[in-house]
């Protein structure tokens, strides 16, 4: 039977239609329509729902600094990396140089944001697998990082364009380096604390589920941890280094199995690697300017005409902004390319075919999709 016919809800066909949506405890704010026979998923149809925010259109009539604030909203789990992508795009178009301390601060906050995102992901994964202690542990340790974000940028979740074109909005407060070091210690402590949860809850319930082979991962457009769990070493920080990542010593975790457990372990190992990066940066940081031209970018400045494709490694994969400017004070077009659309529509649909309905939530959370980033 063709797949397109299965997706239509019709009482004549064999099997049952299910809607996995926010009413299910293991699912976030979007739904997946499933065609199920004897507990096996025959076809799936992800339904984004009402998440469209129109961010790309909003960016077309806002100035540079206003867009920096707006880019927080692309993905609430990982706002610093999206700030960074927008800042990179404007800097490549305008040729603005960033001071060294500004670059280091950007990298520290981007890596801490990645750690925070992975910790939150681990919490929700454990919750969907029925291990609530993992969720509570994760939320506790995420709170330490949020406290640091609040001290540095003034916002717990949304940094309000902390990483802006030209540098960062504020330097670390007095004693900030020590607080960053404490936050890194707490992130590494988290890795020790969750070991029993991984062994007893995550490993038995994710091993062998949703296997994504190497060829399929490339064909379906997977990036980030999902691609690396299928045995492909691909990371924008290594392949196309931005900021000062080429001066740092870190590894890219790669797993060969391609199943849900491999995707989980890649992220767990990434927390350790990000902590390593932060520790190196804190040692290297020297006092200095954090922002080029402290005030001038606040005013509506004309963006030089041209096109640019700026990309960075966000917590979920490769994020990018294609920006075109005609020389006005706002970009003519900015196309946001998040990793989550590929993970949600082609990859999730591919992995759910033939899966047991019990495992749908585990497979979904192993991909770590941010629904708000799917539909900007």
């Amino acid at each position, binding site marked *: 039977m063709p797949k397109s016919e299965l997706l239509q809800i019709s009482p004549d066909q064999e099997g049952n239609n299910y809607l996995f949506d926010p009413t299910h405890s293991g699912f976030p704010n979007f739904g997946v329509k499933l065609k199920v026979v004897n507990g096996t998923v025959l076809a799936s149809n992800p339904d984004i729902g009402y998440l469209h925010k129109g961010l790309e259109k909003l960016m077309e009539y806002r100035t540079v600094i*206003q867009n920096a604030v707006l880019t927080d909203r692309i993905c609430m789990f990982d706002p610093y990396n999206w700030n960074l992508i927008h800042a990179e795009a404007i800097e490549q178009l305008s040729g603005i140089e960033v001071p060294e301390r500004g670059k280091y601060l950007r990298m520290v906050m981007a890596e801490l944001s990645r750690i925070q995102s992975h910790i939150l992901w681990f919490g929700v994964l454990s919750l969907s697998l029925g291990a609530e202690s993992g969720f509570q542990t994760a939320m506790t340790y995420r709170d330490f990082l949020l406290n640091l974000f609040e001290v540095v940028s003034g916002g717990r979740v949304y940094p309000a364009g902390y990483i802006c074109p030209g540098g960062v909005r504020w330097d670390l407060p007095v004693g900030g380096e020590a607080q960053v070091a404490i936050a890194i210690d707490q992130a590494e402590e988290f890795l020790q604390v969750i070991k029993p949860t991984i062994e007893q809850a995550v490993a038995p319930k994710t091993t062998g589920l949703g296997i994504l082979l190497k060829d399929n991962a490339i064909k379906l457009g997977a990036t980030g941890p999902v691609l690396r769990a299928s045995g492909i070493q691909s990371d924008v920080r290594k392949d196309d280094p931005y900021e000062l990542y080429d001066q740092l010593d870190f590894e890219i975790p790669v797993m060969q199995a391609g199943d849900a457990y491999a995707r989980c372990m890649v992220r767990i190992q990434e927390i350790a690697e990000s902590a390593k990066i932060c520790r190196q940066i804190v040692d290297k940081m020297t006092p200095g300017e954090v922002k080029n031209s402290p*005030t001038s970018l606040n005013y509506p400045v004309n963006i030089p005409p041209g096109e640019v494709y700026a990309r960075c490694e966000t917590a979920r994969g490769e994020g990018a902004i294609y920006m075109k400017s005609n020389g006005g004070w706002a970009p003519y077009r900015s196309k946001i390319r998040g990793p989550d659309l590929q993970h949600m529509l082609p990859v999730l649909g591919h992995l759910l075919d033939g899966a047991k309905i019990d495992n749908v939530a585990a497979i979904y959370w192993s991909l770590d999709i941010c629904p708000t980033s799917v539909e900007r």
Partner: protein
Amino acid sequence: MNIRFEYEAIALPERYRGAPQLNLEQCISCGLCVAICPNKALKRILVDQEFQTNFPFTYPRVNVRKCCFCGLCQDICPVGAIRMTKHVLLATKEPAGLITGPTPKYAD
């Protein structure tokens, strides 16, 4: 971190951005904050007629309901007239109370 709400104060860091507040006596009516506000939460209006002899220009009115607490107005203000306060408990039964100013301090 848990606190006993209403009995204990919330510990806020120095850079915390609460509701913005305008100090009319310092304002020079340049309009930069109105121009930079991403959400158009600030609007220039005249003060009440009885104060117009001392404050003859248009001054920003703050609509906290539209505010995204980015703090750009505070950054750009050349005289420091508009500030992000530590006012964090904004829930109210009277939403009109969240639209503040511009009123001189001695009006109360």
